[in-house]
């Protein structure tokens, strides 16, 4: 952590960045995002295993973009999200100083190509817990999966925390808020919840960086990240593409191969 704070201090003092975004102590053992706009506010920064949130969700906000160049303490998931956001033209290449923290080491990356190179060094692996949960789902039969999700989704109150915490859900005007025409009912009743989660999953297939924040954000503990991470894994299996690895947009659903293989279309 010392090295990150030191470097952040230099960047801030030399005026190279207007703010530093990292983690600070929150309630109990939790960690919360922290913006330091003066060197004196840097002491609050912490870095440990409890720092898990994908901070990329903040850097696309208008308030943050207005600040100017910002340095971000970036875990691998944050790095992937930032790279994907740059590929999707939501962030300008070079608009951030990325302080990559992987396994304790700090590396400064300030362009999409540097991020791409850095991310290519290590293969993306899904954590064991989510992998096991996805395998459990896979092992169920159709009726069991239906019952499982109906039970889980019955608790959803459409607070949209899962949407709002996701760095890849950046649209100012989300289709969930559209009412002309209204594709998805706003109410959190059976069909409203089901369609919301189906649409969210489809919108993130091929774009999800597998941070798991959506599941962590849910106040009633619905594992919604299994839907999006599952869809991302499907895209990878089917088309060999992954979100957050290329500086140039590589979105599986906006391209095709003439020999894409399936076995269900009659």
């Amino acid at each position, binding site marked *: 952590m010392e090295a990150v704070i030191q470097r952040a201090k230099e960047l801030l003092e030399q005026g190279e960045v207007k703010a530093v975004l990292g983690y600070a102590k929150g309630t109990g053992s939790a960690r919360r995002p922290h913006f330091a706009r003066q060197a004196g506010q840097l002491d609050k920064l912490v870095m440990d295993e409890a720092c898990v949130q994908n901070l990329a969700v903040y850097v696309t906000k208008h308030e943050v973009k207005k600040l100017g160049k910002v340095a971000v303490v970036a875990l691998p998931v944050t790095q992937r999200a930032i790279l994907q956001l740059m590929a999707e033209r939501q962030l300008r290449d070079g608009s951030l100083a990325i302080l990559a923290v992987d396994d304790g080491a700090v590396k400064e990356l300030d362009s999409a190509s540097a991020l791409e190179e850095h991310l290519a060094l290590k293969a993306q692996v899904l954590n064991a817990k989510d992998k096991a949960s996805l395998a459990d789902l896979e092992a*169920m039969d159709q009726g069991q999966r239906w019952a499982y999700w*109906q039970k889980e989704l019955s608790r959803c109150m459409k607070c949209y925390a899962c949407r709002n915490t996701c760095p890849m859900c950046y649209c100012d005007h989300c289709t969930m808020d559209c009412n002309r025409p209204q594709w998805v009912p706003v109410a*959190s009743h059976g069909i409203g919840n089901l369609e919301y989660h189906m649409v969210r999953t489809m919108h993130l297939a091929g774009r999800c960086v597998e941070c798991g924040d959506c599941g962590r954000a849910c106040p009633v503990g619905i594992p919604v990240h299994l839907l999006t991470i599952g*869809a991302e894994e499907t895209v990878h299996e089917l088309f060999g593409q992954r979100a957050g690895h290329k500086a140039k947009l590589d979105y599986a*659903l906006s391209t095709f191969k003439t020999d*894409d293989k399936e076995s269900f279309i009659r």
Partner: protein
Amino acid sequence: MRVLRVPCTGRIDYMMVLKALHKGADGVIVSGCHPNDCHYTSGNYHARRRWMVFKKMMEVMGVDMRRITFSWVSAAEGARWAQLVNEVTDQVRALGPYTEFRQVIGAGIE
């Protein structure tokens, strides 16, 4: 059976399939021209990818995928189209009403 005409398979939003189920359809056919035969060059290639991902998502959600049929039938294949529709209609009739889904449509609405 109700037909919803769109200009190209590329125009088939998966929301249309969800809405059909929402409106109480017990089965849905999603169909269009064969790959390599697209009037708009690549609409069906894009659609194919989307269907692949959509189908898997629906399976993960536990939707009964025997009720959704994907097919390539062009406008010049009248006989094939009639045959497909007959087959699918028989199949869906045999499955009966999609009660699991209908229960959800009513759930939580006072």
